[in-house]
């Protein structure tokens, strides 16, 4: 180096000053200011070097440097047997305290891992005691996502150093790559790939935290991904639990371990408080988890471009940059979850790992239901809104969430997902969904999609906008139920459809006995969030605890589950469960109502003789109303019985009205009131109003939509009826009832070939139900195919020997065959048998030919019809 120390300061000053000038001005500057040519030359030389040295020494010397362990250090060789029991199979890895081997347990004849403890570690005082404690702690944590630790062994080595004591820990053998290897291999994870692994890691950590164990050295290198050959799933197992401590060996280290305080862990994944030696709790694991998730999603740790040392320091002193800078399409919910884990303040992080998982899962669920097309839709809508604004044709409407404070609030409760391990618990998830629907239906200002409509989305993956437009609702409640013994975990999530915003979400970890409370809380919170007012007198409870007998309640829910299938077998099973529920708690009203409804359906659908089922229904309803005079569904069922069986029309009207007073939004009540009372009494206008209300809350119900068309048919608006049925059949072409009704409308339109085709199809779809067979026979007769008509008549007569066939069906067929006298006889039979379909006598077009007949009028009067 040419420069003398005396000149050096001058050189540095000139160098610095020259650097501040533009390159082309530097020479002139130096000529003016550097009087000593030696100094000037040196500065010019340095400037040249400087321009070339930009990348020089820019990374620390040790960065990227690798350590390579010597391979010859394994203390045990394959074949050697430890403690007379564990035969070394192979060396797996070396750790801070010793080495890990795969061994064969000669006693139990299975392979497991052992972790040997290094002699130098053992020589430290208290070492053995420490390991005992560690094994104790590790054994406390039994979870499939935590590597199991079995036992501590001490033995003499068989090898040359025969007197040397060997200490080792036996543990579960995990075969798979570590998460750090996986990250290195794949770069980064997609959320749907990451979530199952994160959930498992959280489950493992949760198990530890629950027994007061903090890992303190959680990192990708300590997570082993074990492929499960059968399921194709990967099991993530956390290792080095409680064994994460280094071979430090001083006393305070031991004390640290016991009090779960102090320094341990890998700096790259350390929480600030671990460095600062403030108290280390499970929050430190959550911090580490945040770093691991960051790494999984972006492929790197925060501040990764810095030197590792600076990375650690910066994490302590600066806010963590958004991981979305690295992975721009990262869900914002994931981003905030990661950043919350990495909060400098332990108290601000997620309080438990479960909370973290929940946040990520929620985000995922939303993402699944808001697929890309949702976003595109939204963008398109925004564009339209914008262009509309600019052209002045249309005012741009804000696409924000539902307008709060408005009374036009509407919601659909999507079927809660059964998250229990037992798929059989589906009935429970369905039951809770239905209970919440019923609770919300009591709120006057809230329009609630009825059960049938919401359940039409069960198991489908329709995006929320589709749900919203098909049901015409603005908000969605979805959730899940996990039932395990007496423990319940219910998660509920209220989402605005317009923008996918979460309005509210909550997790309830409760006992089964709190089920009514939880349902009430959910319903009330929704009312609160949607700013709707509860109806007068309903401030107290929307869901009443009908029973303290949880067995009865669950049997009731099972009954509902089968009832909702509306099949002959389903109704039969529902009756069984409702009866069992009643036996368990005779004072519990809902199963009594359920039982009555089952019997009513049996009577109304004509599968059972009215005399056999309606008395049972009446009995159940009588008891139900005695227990709970406020039960709207009981009043509705009572109205139905009074109308179709008792022909007590005044009583029926009172019951239906009472039911509607109690629950103004119940679609079933509106429907039943219309179909069982208003239509038979020719009150078509009112029937239309109630059917519209029913359909508004249950737009996807096939039955309600069919009844809307049926009303047109009874009102003699056949074109409208046909259109209505065709609409229903578009929703479900196999819905036999609609096909059957369609045939009737064609028949009245004198489109006999079309009617016959429809009836023939209905016969097949309903597996030859008496009413479809009778209708087909009638159409044959009207078309002049008498032979075919008589064949079917024979079939019906045969049928009536083994099952109930309504005499009204025979009456209609007789009229088509020109047998008027027989028809009247059958109608009189109908009075005796209290056939439910006799109540439609006054409006049925098929009786128009004898409407003025004296006998017919007498029969109508007998039924109490105007």
């Amino acid at each position, binding site marked *: *180096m040419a*420069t003398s*120390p005396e000149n*050096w300061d001058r050189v*540095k000053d000139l*160098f*610095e000053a020259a*650097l501040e000038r533009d390159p082309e001005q530097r020479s002139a500057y130096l000529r003016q200011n550097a009087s000593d040519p030696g100094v000037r030359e040196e500065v010019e*030389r*340095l*400037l*040249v*070097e*400087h321009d*070339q*040295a930009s*990348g*020089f*020494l*820019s*990374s*620390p*010397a*040790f*960065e*990227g*440097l*690798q*350590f*390579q*362990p*010597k391979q010859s250090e394994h203390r045990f060789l394959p074949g050697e047997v430890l403690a007379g029991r564990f035969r070394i199979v192979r060396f797996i890895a*070396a*750790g*801070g*305290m010793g080495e890990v081997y795969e061994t064969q347990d000669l006693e139990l004849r299975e392979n497991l891992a052992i972790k040997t403890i290094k002699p130098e570690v053992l020589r430290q005082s208290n070492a053995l005691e420490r390991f005992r404690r560690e094994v104790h702690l590790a054994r406390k944590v039994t979870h499939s996502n935590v590597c199991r630790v079995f036992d501590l062994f001490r033995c003499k080595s068989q090898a040359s150093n025969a007197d040397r004591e060997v200490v080792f820990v036996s543990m579960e053998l995990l075969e798979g790559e*570590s998460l*750090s*290897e996986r990250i*290195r291999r794949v770069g980064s994870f997609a959320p749907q790939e990451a979530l199952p692994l994160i959930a498992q890691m959280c489950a493992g950590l949760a198990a530890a935290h629950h027994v007061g164990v903090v890992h303190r050295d959680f990192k990708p*290198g300590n997570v082993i991904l074990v492929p499960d050959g059968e399921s194709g799933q990967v099991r993530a197992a956390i290792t080095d639990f409680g064994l994460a401590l*280094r*071979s*430090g060996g*001083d006393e*305070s280290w031991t004390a640290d371990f016991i009090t779960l305080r*102090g*320094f341990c862990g*890998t*700096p*790259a994944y350390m929480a600030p408080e671990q*460095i*600062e*030696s*403030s108290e280390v709790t499970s929050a430190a694991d959550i911090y580490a988890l945040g770093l691991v998730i960051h790494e999984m999603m972006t492929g790197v740790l925060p501040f990764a471009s810095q*030197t*590792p*040392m*600076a990375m*650690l320091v910066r994490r302590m002193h600066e806010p963590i940059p958004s991981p979305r800078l690295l992975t721009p399409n990262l869900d914002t919910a994931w981003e905030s979850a990661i950043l919350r884990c990495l909060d400098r303040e332990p108290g601000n992080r997620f309080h438990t790992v479960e909370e973290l998982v929940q946040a990520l899962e929620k985000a995922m669920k939303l993402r699944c239901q808001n697929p890309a097309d949702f976003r595109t839709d939204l963008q398109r809508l925004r564009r339209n809104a914008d262009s509309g604004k600019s052209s002045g044709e249309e005012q741009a409407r804000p696409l924000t969430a539902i307008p709060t404070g408005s009374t036009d609030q509407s919601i659909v409760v999507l079927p809660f997902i059964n998250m229990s391990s037992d798929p059989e618990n589906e009935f429970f998830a369905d039951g809770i969904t239905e209970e919440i629907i019923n609770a919300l239906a009591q709120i006057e200002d809230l329009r609630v999609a009825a059960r049938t409509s919401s359940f039409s989305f069960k198991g489908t993956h329709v995006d929320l906008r589709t749900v919203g437009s098909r049901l015409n609702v603005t908000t969605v409640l979805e959730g899940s139920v996990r039932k395990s013994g007496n423990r319940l975990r219910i998660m509920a999530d209220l989402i605005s459809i317009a923008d996918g915003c979460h309005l509210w979400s909550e997790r309830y970890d409760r006992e089964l006995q709190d089920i009514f409370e939880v349902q009430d809380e959910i319903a009330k919170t929704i009312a609160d969030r949607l700013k709707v007012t509860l109806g007068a007198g309903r401030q107290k409870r929307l869901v009443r605890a009908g029973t303290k007998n949880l067995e009865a309640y669950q049997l009731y829910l099972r009954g509902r589950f089968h009832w909702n299938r509306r099949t002959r077998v389903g109704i039969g099973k529902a009756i069984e469960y409702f009866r069992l529920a009643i036996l368990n708690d005779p004072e519990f009203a809902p199963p009594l109502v359920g039982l009555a409804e089952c019997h009513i359906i049996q009577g109304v659908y004509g599968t059972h003789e009215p005399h056999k089922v309606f008395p049972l229904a009446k009995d159940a309803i009588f008891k139900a109303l005695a227990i709970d005079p406020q039960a709207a569904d009981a009043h509705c069922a009572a109205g139905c019985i009074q109308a179709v069986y008792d022909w007590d029309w005044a009583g029926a009207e009172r019951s239906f009205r009472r039911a509607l007073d109690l629950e103004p939004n119940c679609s079933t009540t509106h429907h039943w009131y219309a179909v069982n009372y208003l239509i038979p009494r020719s009150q078509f206008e009112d029937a239309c109003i109630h059917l519209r209300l029913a359909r508004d809350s249950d737009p996807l119900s096939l039955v309600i939509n069919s009844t809307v068309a049926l009303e047109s048919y009874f009102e003699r608006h056949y074109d409208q009826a046909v259109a209505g049925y065709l609409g229903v059949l578009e929703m479900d072409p196999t819905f036999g009832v609609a096909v059957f009704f369609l045939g009737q409308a064609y028949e009245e339109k004198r489109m006999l070939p079309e009617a016959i085709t429809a009836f023939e199809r209905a016969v097949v779809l309903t597996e030859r139900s008496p009413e479809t067979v009778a209708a087909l026979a009638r159409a044959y007769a009207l078309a002049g195919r008498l032979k075919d008509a008589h064949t079917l008549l024979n079939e019906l007569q045969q049928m009536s020997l083994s099952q109930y066939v309504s005499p009204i069906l025979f009456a209609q067929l007789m009229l088509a065959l020109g047998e008027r006298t027989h028809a009247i006889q059958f109608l009189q039979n109908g009075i005796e048998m209290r056939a439910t379909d006799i109540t439609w006598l006054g409006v049925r077009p098929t009786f128009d030919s004898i409407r003025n007949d004296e006998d017919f009028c007498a029969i109508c009067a007998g039924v109490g019809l105007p």
Partner: protein
Amino acid sequence: MDSSPEDVTLLLSELQNGNQEAASKLMPLVYNELRRLAKGYMRRERAEHTLQATALVHEAYLKLVKQPSVNWKGRSHFFGIAAQLMRQILIDHARGHLREKRGGAHEVVSLDEALVFTPGQSAELVRVDEALERLAKLDQRQSKIVELRFFGGLSVEQAAEFLGISPKTVKRDWSVAKASLHGELRHADGNITGKLGPR
């Protein structure tokens, strides 16, 4: 050699108070600790070795300086010392590596495990070290800054804190020193291979 945390803390606070002797007492303690930890690190976490050297220093720090009473200045002092040690360790190994290549015995302070240098890296490191020695004779502080930044991985601010000077001065000295070293290394064998540049 047993090093109790108390000793280290005491020495660090002495160092802070200007007792330069403390540094020379501290050195063997820290070095010993680094060696011991390095062994564990190298065996344990092969998959994460890019962070190892740094993690090593940190762990040594964490092990030795547990007391919450040690403030950030204490840390920066420690990192300063660690930088010096890292330099010594790396250069020892680079020399050993070169000697080994020439068939000589590996007689350096051993970490028991081999540090794996990329081809050419060892020679470069040794030359930087030698140039740094010469620079130290001319400008002790510049040499120290290079040691802190290049061998210790300290940021400009951390180096400034360690040396008790302004970051601006550190920046200036770092530029000059880099230019100077760059020139020297280039002149020695005609060109810079870029092996010590950024990856």
